[in-house]
């Protein structure tokens, strides 16, 4: 009886220690991952400036990755504009400020909603696709084959994709913003008859440099990190086939989180300025 109790105690202690070990490993893992990501980022940035430059691969990746999210981004942007206008119209009407509606929609879409929602869509579609593709290349030893022939896969496979997303994501955000304004224009016309010129004049009258510059810079960073995190997760994937799914999954999670963090930092900076 006593022996049994001792055994149970011993097991409980062992379990507790294991949980502690797991927790320690988890936190260590985060810091190791962060450290590796910093080194990886440095290496990728260095590769961006080293010849041979893969212009053709850059254009191909830009087209493929942009195409992948284009329809979703455009439709989401359009619906966001439409819905936001329909929600805001009654509230602004109560204050007799209906004329401000196009400007409010434009500012909220351009400054915040357009970049963040497009960023999240791209994290889901592009970052996961990059993560899965590069992880599959790792599993089938294609990356190893590039490494052993001295062809610097980091430059060909990773740098071209990171560059492509850095260019493509801001373009997608601009498209999302444009279609959201179109959606807003249609929604405004449900309540009153407004010309497109008047709507756009009212929308752009409230947009200034302070809205456009940080928003654009933010989207460039979103694009960079979406490509980088997807590539990092794929490049450091394990050897088994299950690592393909894991890479895609963690690429989405980490890039989505990164988008929110970058957004928060930009909001803090712009609010101070």
């Amino acid at each position: 009886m006593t022996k049994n109790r001792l055994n149970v105690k011993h097991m409980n202690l062992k379990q507790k220690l294991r949980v502690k070990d797991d927790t320690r490993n988890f936190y260590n893992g985060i810091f190791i991952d962060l450290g590796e990501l910093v080194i990886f980022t440095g290496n990728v940035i260095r590769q961006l400036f080293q010849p041979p430059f893969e212009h053709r691969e850059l254009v191909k990746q830009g087209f493929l990755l942009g195409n992948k999210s284009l329809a979703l981004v455009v439709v989401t942007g359009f619906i966001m504009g439409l819905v936001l206008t329909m929600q805001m119209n009654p509230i602004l009407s109560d204050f007799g400020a209906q004329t401000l509606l196009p400007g409010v929609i434009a500012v909220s879409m351009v400054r915040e909603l357009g970049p963040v929602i497009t960023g999240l869509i791209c994290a889901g579609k592009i970052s996961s696709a990059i993560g899965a593709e590069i992880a599959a290349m790792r599993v089938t030893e294609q990356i190893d084959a590039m490494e052993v022939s001295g062809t610097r896969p980091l430059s060909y496979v990773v740098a071209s994709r990171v560059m492509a997303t850095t260019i493509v994501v801001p373009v997608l955000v601009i498209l999302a913003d444009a279609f959201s304004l179109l959606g807003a224009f249609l929604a405004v016309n449900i309540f009153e008859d407004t010309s497109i010129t008047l709507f756009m004049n009212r929308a752009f009258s409230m947009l200034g440099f302070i809205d456009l510059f940080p928003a654009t810079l933010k989207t460039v960073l979103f694009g960079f990190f979406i490509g980088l995190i997807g590539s990092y997760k794929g490049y450091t994937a394990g050897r088994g086939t299950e690592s393909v799914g894991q890479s895609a999954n963690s690429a989405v999670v980490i890039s989505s989180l990164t988008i929110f963090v970058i957004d928060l930092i930009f909001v803090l900076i712009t609010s101070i300025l």
Partner: protein
Amino acid sequence: MEKEIVIEIEQLYKSFREKHILKGIDLTLHKGENLGIVGKSGIGKSVLTKCIVRLIEADSGSINVLGTDVVSCDGEELNELRKKVGYLFQGGALYDSMSVRENLLFPVRRTQFVDRKHDTEELIERSLRSVGLLDAIDKMPSELSGGMKKRIALARTLILKPQIILYDEPTTGLDAVTSGEISELIQQIREEYQTAAIIITHDMKCARIATDTIRIMKEGQFVTEGTYEELSCSGEKEIRDYFI
């Protein structure tokens, strides 16, 4: 006169966590020599070849390849060395988004900055002719059989004119006829390109055709060395068993 040494490994150790894979490997490969490494699965044969090109970092020991210390050399030196060492992966590792032509062009374009179309075309055709697959030049890897993939991967290795080739189970997963052809091809390549090679294999027919000497690996160490004929008639049953 003693032949030039192209690979020299001394006291190489490698562990993965608590599992000791390589336990003090010593190996010397001479110019023009085809050395076979035979042993059970999972005893570290592939780990050894991957350590040679530093795809896997060794824990301790020295690896000297073509006069370069692989363990301590920097990234640029390693890249330069890797251009002189070909590696044929088990599955071929062809780039599946590229055609056969692009697969062969890729290492040339990335390492030698060759822009003249005429020169690269000639290089590609010569390599494909060496492996007897000139007809497959415009095919995609998904359209190729296992044997064809290995041949194309070999052609891709040859295009950089390596001085050493590391073959990781070149005949695994192939039928007897095709694996015989690949083994003959390894011999032909040695004669045509004057390469030295390490051939990891379980296929004794391949070992007989393609190697000069064979080393048997057991529990992370080499236990014996000899020609196919010597080892297959060994007095030890354990060694003879590998050749059944």
